[in-house]
């Protein structure tokens, strides 16, 4: 028997065409109509957004409870009243709706209408409009991903709503009025010349196909909504950045036809960016790896196709031979289950903690600082906190390029909810359009800036003394340090006007109240601009001190968020692919060590493993002879690539397991073809700690296998050769792996694939089956008990500073249209078309002074190498600073230039600052490249990062 629960949401009955339905108070009539399963047109009704009321096709007649004549109202925006009689099928309502639909399809090229509009017109007895067709011009095909054809447009406004109110881009609007009204970009320019980011939210909303993808077909516009025999819809999680957007992938005949956002997904709320919407087709690229490859004929030989059996046997034998000189790199693009099996293999079978992943290159300093100061290395809050925050402090994150959907939420918080944004970035990033304050420190001087902000907050009494007293330690010692750093002193160091520092400090410590006057919180959001420095850990510490000082952590609308870069970099870390801790961040010297030894039935190593950046040195030194690299391309993603290449070339044996051939795989002795996210089950964990399901929607190409299955098979073969018991790697599927993880890792103890299927993504920690997940960490106390202030002082800004011969500072980062090294985005024609070559952004005055113009080929040279890139003149740059994304295009990659100097605590390289000069292509490398020891830039370095003999 079932229990009758009290109704929580007040609701009442109405009748629709005589049928009683129950709707919640405040519901619109359309909800009642839907509850009664009446197929009423609603051409302009956006998904998961407030109604627009523009198409006027959802008209119904309503009789109130008190009697009175029937009123004709639009169902989408008229609230249902208790006891109302709603009639969708009355003669008058049908006649008027038919009249509106007649006018609507009369806008189309053939008078018959398109998509949903045509379907409803036919249902109202209209095969074609009674008016002569009068389609609107023009057609715009300039966008690389979709076409606008006004001849199919009914001006419902959903695309504009999607652009302006959902994504908060504002690229398109209705231009003109009356007979000239049309969808267009500002000043009716070509679409590609607008600020459009090609997220395709507009296309997803178009009911007629006036906005139509150039490849594939959106469901709404297909006119084939009922013929679903050859169509599948699969809900999965985006494989690109760490936002973790929910995607609904429509597949027809084993081809991706269309990708929609999922309005129910709490991380993405129905949004996607251009990569999520239009960038999945790499999975069906013809050059996917389909068979194992073995290099025959020694190091100089060629990679040739082999059987799985031969390849796996070879790998197992070589791995056995390399015990003691082995390391593995796991993939932050693969699933939690893949990562877990990978680290289990490295630890339990290979007997080493030499396991790491690309987190080393992105948020390692954040993790170091967070672990020290609050006891947990993850984001403390949820994206939902940005929605309700009063102040958003966005530091070193070009969010619109790197986390586009979070950027949309940030813009919405500012534009719709009156939040104040402070951007800290040397570059004038897109978010500056909505920011109240933009601070532009010199690269590498963040510590001085944040110490000075703390100084102001202390000086002006804006700090939360009660929070500091009750929840933190180390305050007094820290205070003595920041009291020395006045805003004027910081201005001298970082170039930010002292008054701006004061304004920012006040705005962070006293968040902007809501429109209703209610107090709100401050969210601290940061990215690689903080971490990828030789002082990255100190930068993060200085930032986190601000949150502790003001108590802006652990409550609604506040918190600290290092935005994670890769789709599963959080999960890969959680799963234990780190050299210094077991799964769930449990240390080697704690009780967990014995737990894992018992569970896995082996003795586990206790010595710290190697960080991936140190593995390069170990290869050169000869102590690391064999590498197992899964889903990573270090030969483009690591700094100082000439050096990295030398290191990999010195290996005895390199196994690369991936979905495409790439620079690292080309050096491998064995290449193993893996299934992509599109072809397997598993989970990704996003930047807000939300564990979400990944589901297959395509068959794996050729003989490609899931990563975990390949690793498990290698493990079994190694065990067999070593004559150990063959056990611990016989998983029936990803679900079984997850169950093992949940049984060992307290942070996900309450999760299973089954629960995620039922409830959707949940945020760890989830300690038990009934626990709803944890949107906010540290509500009552920090993971380490008390939060710890750590005093840090501004050191040299960078290991390598501009000099006379290398006068510019080179900043690297990412482009919206490419994913990291470009291995997958180069396989998406639209994305490649957006950014086909590596470009260097330069201030126009610098370009003029050098005699270069937009589009020129220029040579960038550092002490470590040269590349030729296309010049892009851009006022978002300051003079003296250059920006190049680290994607490899046409063989050009900026990491040939970058410095491999490391931040000591975290091992992250300094991607964000090195000294570079700009010259004409073909200029010979002058005596710029000194001896290796001088180039290597390993810490410790002297003041200013200069070494004896460096010329200035």
């Amino acid at each position, binding site marked *: 028997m079932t229990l009758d629960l009290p109704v929580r949401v007040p609701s009442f009955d109405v009748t629709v065409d005589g049928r009683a339905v129950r709707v919640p108070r405040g519901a619109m009539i359309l909800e009642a109509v839907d509850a009664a399963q009446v197929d009423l047109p609603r051409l302009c009704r956006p998904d998961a957004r407030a109604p627009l009321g523009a198409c006027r096709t959802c008209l119904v007649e309503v009789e109130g409870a008190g009697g009175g004549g029937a009123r004709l109202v639009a169902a989408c925006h008229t609230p249902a009243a208790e006891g109302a009689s709603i009639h969708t099928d009355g003669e008058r309502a049908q006649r008027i709706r038919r009249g509106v639909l007649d006018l609507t399809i009369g806008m189309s090229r053939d008078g018959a209408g398109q998509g949903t509009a045509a379907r409803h017109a036919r249902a109202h007895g209209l095969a074609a409009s009674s008016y002569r067709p009068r389609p609107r011009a023009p057609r715009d095909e300039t966008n690389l991903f979709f076409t606008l054809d006004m001849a199919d447009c009914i001006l419902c406004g959903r695309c504009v709503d999607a652009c302006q109110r959902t994504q908060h881009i504002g690229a398109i609007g209705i231009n003109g009025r*009356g*007979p000239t009204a049309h969808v267009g970009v500002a000043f009716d320019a070509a679409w590609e010349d607008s600020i459009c980011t090609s997220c395709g939210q507009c296309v997803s909303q178009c009911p007629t196909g006036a906005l139509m993808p150039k490849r594939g077909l959106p469901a709404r516009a297909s006119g084939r909504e009922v013929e679903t025999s050859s169509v599948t819809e699969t809900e999965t999680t985006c494989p690109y950045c760490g936002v973790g957007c929910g995607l609904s992938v429509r597949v027809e005949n084993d081809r991706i036809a269309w990708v929609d956002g999922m309005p129910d997904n709490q991380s993405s709320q129905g949004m996607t960016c251009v990569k999520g919407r239009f960038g999945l087709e790499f999975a069906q690229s013809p050059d996917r790896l389909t068979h194992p490859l073995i290099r025959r004929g020694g190091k100089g030989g060629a990679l040739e196709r082999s059987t799985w059996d031969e390849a796996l046997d070879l790998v197992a034998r070589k791995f056995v031979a390399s015990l003691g000189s082995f390391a593995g790199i796991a993939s932050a693009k693969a699933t939690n289950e893949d990562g877990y099996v990978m680290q289990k293999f490295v630890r339990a079978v290979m007997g080493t903690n030499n396991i790491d992943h690309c987190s080393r290159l992105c948020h390692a300093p954040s993790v170091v600082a967070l672990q020290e100061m609050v006891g947990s290395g993850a984001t403390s809050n949820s994206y939902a906190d940005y929605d309700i925050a009063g102040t958003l402090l966005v530091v070193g994150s070009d969010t619109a390029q790197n986390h586009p959907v979070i950027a949309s939420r940030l813009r919405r918080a500012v534009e719709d909810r009156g939040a104040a944004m402070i951007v800290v970035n040397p570059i004038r990033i897109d978010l500056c359009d909505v920011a109240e304050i933009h601070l532009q420190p010199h690269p590498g001087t963040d510590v001085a800036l944040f110490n000075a902000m703390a100084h102001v907050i202390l000086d002006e009494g804006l700090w939360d003394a009660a929070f500091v007293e009750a929840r933190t330690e180390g305050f007094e010692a820290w205070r003595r340090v920041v009291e020395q750093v006045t805003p004027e002193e910081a201005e001298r160091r970082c170039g930010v006007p002292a008054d701006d520092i004061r304004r920012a400090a006040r705005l962070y410590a006293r968040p902007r109240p809501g429109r209703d006057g209610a107090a709100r919180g401050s969210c601290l959001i940061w990215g690689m601009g903080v971490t990828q420095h030789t002082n990255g850990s100190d930068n993060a510490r200085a930032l986190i001190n601000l949150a502790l000082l003001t108590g802006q952590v652990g409550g609604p609308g506040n918190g600290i968020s290092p935005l994670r870069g890769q789709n599963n970099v959080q999960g890969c870390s959680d799963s234990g692919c780190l050299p210094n801790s077991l799964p769930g961040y449990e240390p080697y010297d704690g009780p967990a060590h014995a737990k894992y030894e018992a569970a896995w039935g082996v003795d586990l190593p206790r010595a710290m493993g190697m960080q991936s950046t140190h593995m390069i040195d170990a290869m050169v030194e000869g102590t690391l002879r064999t590498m197992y690299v899964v889903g990573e391309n270090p030969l483009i993603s690591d700094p100082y690539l000439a050096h990295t290449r030398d290191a990999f070339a010195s290996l005895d044996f390199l196994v690369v397991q991936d979905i495409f051939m790439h620079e690292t795989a080309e050096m491998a002795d064995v290449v193993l073809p893996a299934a992509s996210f599109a072809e397997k089950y598993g989970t990704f964990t996003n930047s807000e700690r939300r564990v979400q399901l990944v589901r297959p929607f395509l068959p794996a190409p050729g003989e490609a296998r899931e990563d975990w299955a390949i690793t498990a098979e290698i493990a079994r073969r190694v065990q067999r050769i070593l004559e150990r018991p063959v056990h611990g790697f016989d998983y029936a599927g990803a679900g079984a792996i997850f169950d093992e993880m949940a049984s060992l890792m307290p942070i996900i103890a309450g999760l299973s694939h089954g629960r995620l299927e039922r409830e959707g993504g949940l945020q760890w920690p989830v300690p038990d089956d009934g626990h709803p997940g944890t949107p906010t960490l540290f509500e009552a106390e920090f993971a380490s008990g008390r939060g710890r202030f750590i005093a840090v002082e501004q050191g040299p800004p960078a290991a390598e500073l501009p000099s006379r011969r290398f006068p510019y500072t080179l900043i690297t980062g990412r482009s919206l249209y490419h994913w990291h090294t470009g291995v997958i985005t180069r396989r998406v024609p639209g994305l490649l078309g957006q950014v086909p070559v590596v470009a260097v952004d330069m201030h126009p005055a610098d370009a003029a002074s050098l005699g270069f113009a937009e589009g020129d080929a220029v040579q960038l040279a550092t002490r470590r190498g040269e590349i030729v890139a296309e010049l892009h003149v851009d006022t978002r740059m300051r003079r003296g600073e250059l920006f190049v994304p680290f994607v490899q295009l046409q063989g050009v990659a900026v990491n040939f230039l970058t410095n491999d100097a490391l931040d000591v605590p975290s091992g992250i390289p300094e991607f964000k600052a090195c000294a570079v000069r700009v010259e004409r292509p073909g200029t010979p490398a002058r005596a710029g490249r000194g001896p290796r020891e001088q180039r290597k830039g390993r810490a410790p370095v002297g003041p200013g990062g200069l070494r004896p003999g460096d010329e200035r």
Partner: protein
Amino acid sequence: MTGPSPTPALAELRARIALRAPSVRILRHRGTCGDAVGAAMIPFDLRAPVVDAACDGACWAAPAATVVRAGHRHRFARLDRGVPEALAACVRGECDERQAGSGESGVAARLGRNDGTLADVLAQGGYAGYAVAAGLPPPRIIEAAHAAGLTGRGGAHFAAATKWGLVAAHADAAKVLVVNAEEGEPGVFKDRHLLEGDPHRLIEGILIACRATGIRDAYVYINGQARNARAVFEHALADARDAGILDSSLGGAPVTIEVRSGAGGYVCGEESVILNSIEGERPVPRYRPPYATDAGLFGRPTLIHNAETLCAATTIFDSPPPPTKLVPLSGDVPRPGLYEVPVDGNMTWAGVLAMAGAAPGRVQALLLGGPSGRFVLPGEFDAPLEMHPLGAGGTVVLGPRADIARITRELAAYNARESCGECTPCREGTQRLLELLEDPATNRDRIDALIEVMTAASLCALGGMAGRPVTSALAAFPEAFEPRAPSEGSAP
């Protein structure tokens, strides 16, 4: 009819800002229509100072001037023919005790008959109504508005007291008043006259409405092309502010008044479009609910009134309050202009036309309400005028040779052009209606069916009423729409 007697605060203000003017002055009526016919260049060679004033509503009289002596106001019309001896005689005091214009009380009492200074306005009774309201509890003001029968002069004639009550009920919210002075439709020029000719009356009305409802912030939305009206109003606003009137010098709570203008367009007079326009959004209407009185400008409870309504609100404490409506009268008539018409059961269209000098039998019809309006036929001219059917009051007199069918098509074309484009029935319907009217083969039933759809389904009144003049013309002048042979040379 008399205004209320001054409160002590008002008496103090009058004493502080006293009118110091010679006993005889000549007010030269400039403003848009006067300047258009050279009012600025009339040579007065008399021993009285000449002061610029706005149009007093007698558009037909321009260029005109009014001689002002104590207790005597005498307008002289058509001075382009020269300054008449009668005017000089009037300046000398040798003149009949008769008055020009439409009366000394009511909304237009001071219209164009003041020199634009606060002192002159105070001397003529300005702010007396607000001085009374400032001393009353807000519910009493609402009662007074109710008793005076104050209704919305923008056309819908909704009871102002009811609206004030709805807004006042949001006791704790930060409410706003929005004044609709857009007046974008053809044939209506009353609000522009009020802003140019007696801006302090609007300010006073704003203060009374704010006092009644507890509003502290007001926005005045003035047509972007009415630059003179905006300049004059802002000048008056500055004077009122300097005199402390916005800031409790007459009692009441401080009120901020800001001026906003859009880029123009008929639809910008629709009240929810104004809210979008002020917010910086595209000028398209909002659906209701929510109603503006609950969630309007920036989501705040919002009282929206036509400028004339608030000007009329200054008379609710008069005894008795004058039940008048401003009627901008234009077209084929000898004396076009702005008429303040008593709506007391005694006035008829025939009376209005007589004031305007129209010869009986020379009027084919009146177009009342412009592109959203209807045709009034001579058969209705003797019926007493009522407030609600007057709408906003815009009236165009159509002479015997007026081409009704062409006028109807022009109105349809205007609506099609001015449709904002937001909703399908209006955007498409207005264009299709024009097509049907231009096609001689059109079946009447199709027009009726389309108008039914536009009327029932449109998002706002622009589309909802766009079919009204067509329906009216088809009913009143069916013969004008008889299928006719295409004229020679026209396209098939």
